[in-house]
């Protein structure tokens, strides 16, 4: 069982696996996002209160969700690297951080663009918004901590530790709308029993979400290949790869 695990986590294997997965993931992402955009922006009916402004949701909600899941993934991968000293964990964490940070920026930007028509302001110091901003700080902190070390091994472990400590922020962001009275929308989609959203709006949203997830996976694979190559540049298999290309 452990042997199997170690083989799965060995850099050359991951390098090849990522190459196989990336095109499938990215292809799926293109399909889902394509359908979601067309259906969501063109065919879905305008909201009875918000008019067309609500369509920002098709970018905003998926990127906000992914900003949270990417952070969790980064922390878990870093934890695996820290505790079991499995190098690929750190590589995954390092590859995921900038993608997650970009999703966070996207969520903040789309959110504040949406805030202008909705709340009459781009920014308010509201719990959800503030905690999402903190998430961005955490991403930046993790990335700069990693790069501040001259020795990459120590940088990886330090960044992993910080990522784990910061995970506490994820549930805070998620539940902030329930714990404090907030300007921000409560859960709209996740109420599976009775989503408070008509299907014609919901399906494109779900498709966008799936598409964003696939996109994240695909980009992660691509970045992971780069990370692994860079980290293993001393080893023999990388030299073979380079020679072969």
């Amino acid at each position, binding site marked *: 069982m452990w042997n199997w695990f170690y083989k799965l986590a060995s850099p050359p294997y991951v390098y090849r696996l990522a190459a196989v997965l990336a095109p499938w993931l990215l292809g799926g992402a293109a399909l889902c996002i394509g359908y979601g955009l067309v259906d969501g922006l063109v065919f879905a009916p305008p909201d009875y209160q918000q008019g067309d402004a609500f369509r920002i949701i098709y970018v905003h909600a998926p990127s906000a969700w992914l900003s949270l899941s990417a952070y969790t993934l980064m922390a878990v991968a870093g934890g695996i690297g820290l505790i079991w000293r499995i190098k690929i964990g750190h590589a995954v964490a390092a590859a995921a951080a900038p993608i997650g940070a970009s999703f966070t920026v996207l969520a903040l930007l789309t959110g504040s663009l949406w805030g202008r028509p909705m709340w009459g302001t781009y920014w308010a110091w509201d719990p959800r918004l503030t905690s999402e901003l*903190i998430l961005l*700080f955490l991403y930046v902190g993790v990335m*700069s901590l990693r790069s501040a070390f001259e020795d990459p091994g*120590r940088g990886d472990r330090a960044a992993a530790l910080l990522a784990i400590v910061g995970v506490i*922020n994820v549930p805070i962001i998620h539940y902030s709308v329930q714990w404090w009275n907030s300007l921000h929308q409560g859960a709209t989609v996740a109420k599976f029993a009775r989503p408070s959203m008509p299907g014609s709006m919901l399906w494109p949203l779900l498709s966008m979400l799936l598409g964003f997830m696939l996109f994240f996976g695909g980009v992660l694979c691509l970045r992971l290949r780069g990370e692994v190559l860079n980290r293993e540049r001393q080893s023999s298999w990388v030299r073979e790869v380079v020679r072969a290309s």
Partner: protein
Amino acid sequence: MNVGAWQVLSLMLRREMCLYFRRPDQLLQPLVFFLIVTALFPLGLSPQLSLLRDMAPAVLWVAALLSALLSLEGLFKGDAEDGTLEQLALCGQPLGLIVAAKTLSHWLVSGAALVIMSPLVAVALGIPREAFPAMLLSLGLGTLTLSWLGAIGAGLTVGLRRGSVLLSLIVLPLAMPLLIFGAGATDRAISGASAAGPLYFLAALCVLTSTLAPFAATAALRITLE
């Protein structure tokens, strides 16, 4: 004749206290900073002094956070620079004890001292006497939590070239809930409402970090020391 955990703790506490009292500036720095920040605000606000009382909780808490944060930078730095941190790491005692002793002494000279001095500042800012218990309690819990969080940050950044900025970048996001609940508790107490909600939350945060942070800070220091 082995040295037990309590001896290690008490020896380290005495060492730290001795060092703080030998360098009165390290001891006074957080307090003076706290006083100065709270004194500057009324000056900057001079035309609209009526605002002062409404913003008092924010001023008080921001000043407390900043002054604790600034002194946190030196938690391991002095020892790292003169080589004594290496000696401590090689002393054959669990590093966790040493980290805990250093953090607690830091809190005693920054956090606890600040709590003791805060009534003075509170009077100057026009915070009514009835709000003092909630304010003192929230400051005490908040600064202790911050010292623990800061120990993690200081452990992660000791010896780094970008140390101090990184420390703020790491600690402040984690400390924002403290500010929100701390200022919230004080504010509610001032306006006569019950501050129990935010205080419970602060207490929970404090217990949580006091149990987990020593391990995280030790792990952090080990990573950077290696």
